[in-house]
């Protein structure tokens, strides 16, 4: 640790809605390729598909409130030579149709792009039935199904383009919160490729989705305290960039993971499972523990320490553990 310096006052970065990017990019793909169709469950508005429907009324298939049918129909559309983007609120798409995702999409190898809308605790006040925090755990357990968690506009665009071009199905979490642009243009977006957003030597914070900007904020604050933080982003939670994660464990000696998801099986569990077998180092896992109480999303993120301050605390804890 070096001498204390005063951090410059942060300038609030402009924030953007990734759902807008989802709608724009999907519509652009539909213009380029007549095989692209959107499938939803009475979620035209909440999936931001109104513009798509207006431009391609025949190619917006609404199966009504029927998620198992939704995913099965998606698999059939793929079998019939189309490229379906199946879009629904994350908790219902993944939980209610989990077996369809496993059997009809992943195991069958039907190329369906599963788009989980309003993930994490975006529907905070509506309660745990409407929180999509288990999706990463559930879908990481399904073979042959990449799990993508884009962070900002650039990554959301990259994720949609990657999913469109991929040979098989995937799960794509569409961020709901407005977020600043934090991923540099041209950053890698491929299975097993992490993005290094900041170099550092004392500890590595691995963050995904809408929490990445908070990890960067924490890293800046910690730099002011003299702690050098490496920040990694892994837009593919599955398959993980094992090489980069293990190198970070070896070079920085401590890890913190940050996700808007349950701790039982998501990013933190994936990283812990990897490093415990190949390069054990102290870790702190930030995420959601148990069902969330009532509150809006901002409150709930604060409640679970999913803030720059919470990340800063976790870094101090893991460094203390590393010293012992």
């Amino acid at each position, binding site marked *: 640790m070096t001498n204390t310096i005063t951090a410059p006052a942060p300038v609030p970065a402009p924030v953007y809605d990734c759902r807008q990017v989802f709608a724009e990019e999907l519509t652009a793909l539909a213009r380029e390729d007549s095989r692209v169709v959107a499938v939803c469950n009475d979620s035209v508005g909440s999936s931001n598909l109104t513009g798509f429907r207006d431009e391609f009324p025949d190619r917006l298939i609404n199966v*009504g409130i*029927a998620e*198992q*049918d939704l995913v*099965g129909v998606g698999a*059939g559309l793929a079998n*019939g030579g189309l490229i379906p983007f199946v879009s629904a609120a994350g908790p219902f798409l993944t939980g209610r149709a989990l077996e369809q995702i496993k*059997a009809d999409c992943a195991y*069958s190898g*039907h190329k369906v792009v599963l788009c989980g809308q309003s993930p994490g605790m975006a529907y905070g006040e509506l309660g745990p039935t409407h929180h999509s925090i288990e999706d990463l755990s559930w879908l990481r357990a399904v073979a042959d199904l990449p799990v993508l968690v884009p962070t900002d506009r650039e990554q959301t665009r990259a994720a949609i383009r990657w999913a469109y071009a991929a040979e098989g199905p995937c799960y794509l979490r569409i961020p709901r919160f407005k977020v600043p642009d934090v991923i540099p243009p041209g950053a890698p977006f491929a299975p097993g490729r992490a993005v290094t957003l900041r170099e550092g030597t004392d500890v590595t914070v691995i963050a995904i989705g809408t929490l990445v900007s908070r990890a960067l904020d924490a890293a800046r604050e910690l730099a002011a305290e003299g702690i050098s933080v490496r920040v990694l982003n892994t837009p593919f939670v599955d398959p993980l960039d094992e090489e980069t994660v293990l190198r970070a464990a070896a070079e920085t000696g401590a890890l913190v993971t940050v996700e808007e998801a349950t701790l039982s099986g998501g990013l933190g569990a994936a990283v812990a499972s990897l490093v415990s077998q190949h390069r054990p180092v102290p870790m702190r896992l930030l995420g959601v523990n148990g069902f969330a109480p009532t509150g809006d999303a901002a409150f709930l993120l604060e409640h679970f320490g999913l803030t720059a301050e919470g990340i800063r605390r976790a870094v101090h804890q893991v460094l203390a553990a590393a010293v012992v």
Partner: protein
Amino acid sequence: MLTADPAAAARYRDLRKATRDGGADETLEVLRAMSTDIRLRIVTMIDRSQLGHIGGDLSVTDILVTLFGAVLDVDPEHPHDPGRDRFILSKGHCAAALYSTLSHCGYFPDAELDTFMAPLSALNGHPNRRKVPGVETNTGPLGHGFPVAVGTALAARLRGENRRTVVVLGDGEMQEGSNWEAAMTAGHYGLTSLTAVVDRNRLQQGARTEDTKTLEPLADKWTAFGWEARRVDGHDHAQLLAAFAPSATGRPVAVIADTVKGKGVSFMEDRVEWHHKVPDQQQVHAAIEELSR
């Protein structure tokens, strides 16, 4: 992925020519012979593997034979031709009947049937499209094939293709809610190229369907969901052929095929224990003798 048996595929082309160009009597004669062959294959497979769902395999046989022998436009040597008709076996536990039919048609060599459920075999206990040509989607858990069939029929419409989609469901399977979601979607979209066949053998794994969860009045239910319902004897090839005629009502067609579980083997017929009981050697010989008559 298994590959086609060219000689068997050639025989299948001749068979299709006979059922297409021959008179009604010849068509039925060819289909009956094919049914006998498929049933013998099923018994032999299950004897070798000591596993399988023999009762439902034998009840669905004549439905599969009518479809592959006379209705579907498919080519075993080009199983992924984009313009092919789509056949989906939603009652995936009756994989032995499907595999027997596919090998008969030349999708893969007959010898593969001997590997049914053996370690590393392509012929899982439930159909896998990544290993077996002619399988369109992986089934086994019930209530999956029908929504997928709705999706393929929707794709045909969107792409302006005339191809058909046929899905075969178990009657017990109609207790799954996802099937009624799919029925509602197909009815709403008026998917006339879609045919759903219910193998109505009235038995499920544990008991009679009507003692488990009542399905009747089944035809009324389909009609209420926007379908044209046709009820036929599911062992009568002539009635099945008529039931597979295209829809003239602008609605998808549900064929309720009344069948007998264990059909063709008298001591298995309509008996719940033959859902997945394996016959002993004496029973195998008796079954083969009876089916060969």
